């Protein structure tokens, strides 16, 4: 039930209930993360063959290296104990050692994180501006050529995966026109930004289309509501009605859907970073899978799922700010 109606007074009772809901949400989140970590840990045992030899496959590890693995994964202990030891390490940021880089997994991932965050940040900005913008145009110009254009872009955009967009952008703006670099991360702030433009566009195409669609639908839903007519009947200028009522009230679905898109976006960084030869967490994942550096894979999978869970929990917690009808106890699902 999305709208649990509470008729009690405005002031009293709200704070504690909200805190309780937050606690409950945190508990749910912790459970999800715990189960996820368990799945990721035990997936190791799905792999064919002996786990130790799987972890060192294709390499001839030194005896110390074998010892560290044995210690971290505790291969002589019973399974729950092994999991516990591993989880303890993970919680302290110890994801094991990368054999590809001869470094701690945490350090490797950490050093790649800024590039990926820049890419994701710029993409999110593009998605928010163009996705919401195009959705607004489509809804307000419903049935005109502008709306048809928006719908066409949504249909095609949703079908253009980021790696296809990457190839096309690279070909046209990188190679043919030479406006943007086609490879690498760049050095220094401006150069990095210059390098991230095409990848960010490539990453944002699909998600912009999805956000556009959701924005347009939600705005059209709101435009039909009576409170919009009431506001107009009171002489509030149309522009203000659109901003203060239509767009504001459409925010709920837009934010909810956007939060669900986050995980897909994080994974797509693997495609875009690979296509543009950027050194980020995404390309690290691909590299690690290709070179069978399983501990790096485990760490990144956990990271992606944790980011998704955290962001959605945050959205759930802040949702009452967007729609006060979602009373403290009634979370969105």
């Amino acid at each position, binding site marked *: 039930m999305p709208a649990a109606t509470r008729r009690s007074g405005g002031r009293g009772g709200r704070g504690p209930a909200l805190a309780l809901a937050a606690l409950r949400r945190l508990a749910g989140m912790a459970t999800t993360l715990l189960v*996820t970590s368990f799945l990721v840990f035990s997936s190791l045992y799905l792999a064919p063959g002996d786990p130790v030899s799987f972890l060192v496959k294709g390499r001839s590890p030194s005896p110390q290296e074998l010892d560290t693995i044995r210690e971290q994964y505790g291969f002589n202990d019973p399974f729950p104990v092994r999991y516990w030891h591993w989880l303890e390490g993970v919680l302290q940021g110890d994801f094991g050692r990368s054999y590809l880089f001869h470094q701690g997994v945490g350090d490797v991932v950490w050093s790649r994180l800024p590039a990926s965050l820049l890419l994701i940040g710029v993409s999110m900005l593009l998605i928010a501006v163009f996705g919401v913008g195009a959705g607004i145009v489509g809804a307000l110009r419903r049935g005109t050529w502008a709306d048809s254009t928006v719908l066409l872009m949504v*249909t095609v955009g949703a079908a253009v995966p980021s790696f296809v967009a990457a*190839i096309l952008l*690279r*070909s046209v703006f990188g190679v043919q026109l030479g406006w943007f670099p086609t490879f690498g991360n760049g050095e220094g702030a401006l150069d990095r930004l210059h390098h991230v433009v095409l990848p960010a566009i490539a990453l944002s195409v699909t998600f912009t289309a999805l956000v556009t669609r959701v924005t347009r639908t939600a705005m059209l839903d709101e435009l039909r509501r009576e409170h919009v007519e009431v506001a107009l009947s009171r002489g509030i200028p149309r522009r203000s009605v659109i901003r203060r009522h239509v767009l504001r009230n459409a925010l709920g679905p837009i934010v909810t859907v956007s939060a669900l898109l986050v995980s897909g976006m*994080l994974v797509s960084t693997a495609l875009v970073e690979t*296509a543009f030869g950027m050194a980020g967490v995404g390309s690290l994942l691909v590299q690690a899978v290709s070179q069978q550096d399983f501990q790096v894979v485990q760490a990144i999978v956990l990271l992606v*799922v944790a980011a998704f869970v955290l962001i959605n929990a945050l959205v759930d917690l802040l949702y009452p700010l967007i729609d006060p009808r979602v009373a403290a106890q009634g979370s969105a699902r």
Partner: protein
Amino acid sequence: MSAVTLDSAAAPPRRDPLRRLRRLGGSWLVNTCLVILAVFLVVALAAPWLAPQDPRFGALSETFADPGAAHWLGTDQGGHDTFSALIEGTRTSLFGPLAVVVFATVAGIAVGLFSAWRGGWVDAAIGRVLDILFAFPALLLAILAVALFGKGLTAPVLAMAVAYLPYTARLVRGLAAAEKSRPYIAAYRVQGHSPVFVSVRGLLPNITPTVLAQATVNFGYALLDLAALSFLGLGVQPPTPDWGSMINQGQSAVLQERPLSAIVPALAIVLVVVAFNVVGEHLADRVAGRDA
């Protein structure tokens, strides 16, 4: 209590799903998309006979040939014929996602029906598990599968089936829970039929159109995910032709300003996914009774 005879209640309000699907045709856009999909399906089935050359072999003397009589769409840096690769690539590119969707849909229906039928804590537990699965994007699960089982298509296809399962299971659970409370189902149960019989006879026909619409949309996404995996070099391995790996192979061609061998499969992917999305949305609209 008013006498509702068993006979009248037992007559299931069946909406013949096939007749609904037969009336599939819609706007010119939907029809065009259906034709596109049909063409690609025929090409996939008849690929070995249709391809003018064997895309697995390339002559280095014919690297980066321009489009012409010998190579309709030119060749890539390995001298492979792009047109033939495009045609033979339809197989892995379409049958991979098909396998994902079939597995996901069948398993999703089973899980959804079971969950709705048992209700109670079983239902709640399954719901929690599905919630957790939602946090794993399909591509991530597929990559994890590759990390464990090595490159190729089998493990990722199964992993993605698991990733897509929650969508169908959730949908079926909701539909089945709603249908379950209707009188014809009660009538079946009163008559002593087993849950499996009631599900298959009574529930399934009524939820098929909705599930099909969901499966159609899933197909488009599964195609994108599998192509992405091959693009990363983790899925279909050369020399087996595949659209995703063609794009991967074509990257260096792009840098040498001969982008055709990468752009052709890219356009094929976009075209097929657009067609699937349009048809899927049209189906969903039909089922929901939206639009005329």
